[in-house]
């Protein structure tokens, strides 16, 4: 199992029970808005500590309250693509892309900067500042930054919202290529049933 999650999250007053397993490929996490889909991604990335439970990805224990395991985010090797992208405003596109790359151990790097730039069609953007990018360009840079950090799996929060149809199609192709060519397990959050039907190999529904 790629993702093996059985944990309770706390977001404000609300407890979010979350339990699912997912094999390799693309798993879509769906559910009504406010149900805590993004919180689940944050918990897997190590940005939100569950109140209890276990989180395993690819057989590696990332969090286990009973065993006292709680890896910090930097030790989880997750490629997180945030909904709000979070590109570093003081670094050019190239320095955004290489930020995680230079920190990744050599054996985890499966992509070079040039390969990633070609793969995502962002080579002409390398010298630009993030604030000068369009939504689709910034989205691809954010995906590239995550891929170059040598992740063992990808977490993508609403990667297709805020994109026009043409860009949307381009990102869908990118995500499928990541699955097929790079063989990374992907957990993505989406509220769009059409996208989910198109992309997901399996669907996990989070209920309130």
């Amino acid at each position, binding site marked *: 199992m790629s993702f093996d999650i059985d944990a309770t999250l706390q977001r404000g007053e609300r407890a979010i029970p979350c339990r699912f397993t997912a094999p390799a490929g693309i798993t879509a996490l769906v559910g009504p808005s406010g149900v805590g889909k993004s919180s689940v991604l944050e918990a897997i990335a190590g940005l939100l500590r569950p109140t209890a439970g276990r989180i395993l990805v690819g057989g590696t224990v990332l969090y286990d309250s009973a065993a006292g395991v709680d890896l910090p985010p930097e030790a989880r090797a997750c490629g997180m693509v945030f909904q709000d992208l979070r590109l*570093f405003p003081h670094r050019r596109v190239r320095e955004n892309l290489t930020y995680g790359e230079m920190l990744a151990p050599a054996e985890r790097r499966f992509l070079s900067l040039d390969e990633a730039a070609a793969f995502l069609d962002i080579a002409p953007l390398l010298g630009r500042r993030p604030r000068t990018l369009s939504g689709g360009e910034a989205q691809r840079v954010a995906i590239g930054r995550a891929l170059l*950090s040598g992740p063992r799996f990808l977490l993508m929060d609403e990667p297709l919202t805020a994109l026009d149809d043409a860009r949307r199609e381009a990102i869908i192709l990118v995500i499928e290529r990541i699955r097929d060519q790079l063989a990374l397990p992907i957990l993505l959050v989406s509220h769009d049933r059409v996208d989910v039907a198109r992309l997901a190999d399996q669907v996990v529904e989070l209920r309130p």
Partner: protein
Amino acid sequence: MGMTADEWGIVMLSLQVSLAAICGAVPLAFVLAWALARLRFPGKILLDGLVHLPLVLPPVVIGWLLLIAFAPDGPGGRLLALFGVSVLFRWTGAAIAAAVMALPLMVRAIRLSLEAVDPRLEQAARTLGAGPWRTFATITLPLASPGVLAGAVLGFARSLGEFGATITFVSNIPDETRTLPLAIYAALQLPGGDSAVWRLAALAVVLSLGALVASEALTRASGQGRGSHVL
């Protein structure tokens, strides 16, 4: 309007005192600003109040408290005595007084710039493999640096004008603690000191204005249009 050698000496002493003051105060101000911006701890309101005290207390009270603290039997005086140092009636004492008085301004500027750094960017850095220290050095500090620089220059300008705490703490000793404001005060006491007062006052305006402009320019230059203005 020729400057006398004495007057140049006063300017150089003022710059020396102010520079020493901000060199000591910036690291302290940064730690305080960081704690106030990022940490939650009991007594935070008290610390916030203490940091701001020099802004609202009569400067003469700060000078008197420093005098007590750094007197030979005071806590600061005893500590410095271990190193064979005393700051009483020395320019180093003037620097301490200036640092204490400039601290609230610097903490405010640095705190604002730290609060303007989006913690979500720091989270992004963590997921990319950066530990807390590397995240601080590569994300937090560069994004906050315009505010830190502006705070330092603002503190420098404030130090140049420090009067009340200085004269109370280290007196008004020529060539040792007589900085620009104290020299103006001394000249005012002398009959016929008017022309000296004019020259020194003009100098004070030029230096202070220069520091303020530099502070704003630094904010803009290193902010490259993305930093928030502190002034």
